[in-house]
């Protein structure tokens, strides 16, 4: 039960912490927006010019689909990495400043270090997955809108891989 209590406590703590949401999600969403609407603003105009005249349009469309998928993936991959880094920095700070409480609790409570860190790690994984899913959904929506006007949804070929 100690594992579950610690897990719930830290999950609630992270998910209700505005600093985590700002640095790990909203600031990252800003960069996803930049990737789609600023750095990728002229891709659609210039893309077809790269092909020789007479190239069949299904080929161009397929290539465009592949290009936008990979462009989105590269932004999502980078941003997810930065997001996880900022989450990890915050969680590391928790561990640093919890050294004495954990020492105290392992002596005078039901929680052993193993139980405490198991609960903490599980909460870290869960919160990271939640933040990552928020970024993944944002990536899909922003880039699908920008490059395909929602006619085609840019979605990962392997959802599990995108989250992990």
């Amino acid at each position, binding site marked *: 039960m100690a594992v579950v*209590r610690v897990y719930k406590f830290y999950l609630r703590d992270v998910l209700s912490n505005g600093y985590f949401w700002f640095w790990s999600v909203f600031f990252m969403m800003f960069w996803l927006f930049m990737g789609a609407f600023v750095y990728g603003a002229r891709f659609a105009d210039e893309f077809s010019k790269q092909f020789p005249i007479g190239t069949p349009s299904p080929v161009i469309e397929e290539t465009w689909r592949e290009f936008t998928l990979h462009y989105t993936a590269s932004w999502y991959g980078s941003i997810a990495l930065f997001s996880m880094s900022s989450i990890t920095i915050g969680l590391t700070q928790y561990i640093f400043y919890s050294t004495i409480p954990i*020492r*105290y609790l392992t002596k*005078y409570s039901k929680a*052993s270090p193993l139980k405490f860190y198991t609960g903490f790690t599980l909460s870290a994984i869960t919160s990271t997955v939640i933040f990552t899913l928020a970024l993944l959904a944002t990536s899909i929506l922003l880039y699908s809108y920008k490059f395909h006007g929602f006619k085609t949804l840019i979605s990962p070929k392997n959802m599990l891989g995108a989250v992990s």
Partner: protein
Amino acid sequence: MVIELIDVFAGYRRGDFVLRGVNLRISSNTIVLGPNGSGKTTLLRAIIGTVISRRGRVVIDGVDVDSIRGSPGLVSANLLELVMQSRLPVKHIASLYLDLVSGDYDYFKDIVLRIGEKSALDKGLHELSAGLRIVVLNALALAAKAKYILLDEPFENLDPARRVAMLSEIARSRSVKVMATHTTWLLKSLADWDIYLMVEGLTYGSLKPHELVELKVSRESVSDAVLSIKLRSGSEIYLSKRIGVPLSSFDSLDKLYEVLIWQ
């Protein structure tokens, strides 16, 4: 069963000790009186087992403090550093903390509502005033229902009404309390408690409150002194029944600190 400190040196930097060979045996309610920086908080940390650098032995109920693991209900304390760092409201922190130490959350809530404020439960610890924070920390220590409760300056920043209420709450607890403080107004309410004086990392005692008030303080050597306090400067202060200025003649026992920091 007792808390026993045997030749304990403790501090925060290796070799630079705040406690300098403390020998103490605590089996009943105890007050550790001493000026700021005398080592009272370090003494409590040494008892809990959270000081970084330590020599000597701390034994709680026959078990070395370093060997204690998974013993809810043995020792609790009102030290802020023992509470998990979190921005969550106090009620969530207290709920987890008291669940882990097998404490009583309803009792905690009752103390906060009676002595503090209801709003304290819904705020983060960092949002509370210094007074409300000490109410919450005291309530956590008391509600842990531990056998030994260590209280570090439990009346600091409390208004006079809350001090009295908190004192009666502490006195009502059936646990063995160890209270480190520099306030002396409470001594007349705690007539059966043991008093230790703490000066420059060493403890002197024990005395009962009425015995302390009856003593006289002197810088001249007294052969049958009840307590002789040796300062780092080399000078000594003698508390005896025969020679010196009676502590009872002071406006307040707080004057004792002026004596203790004579250099």
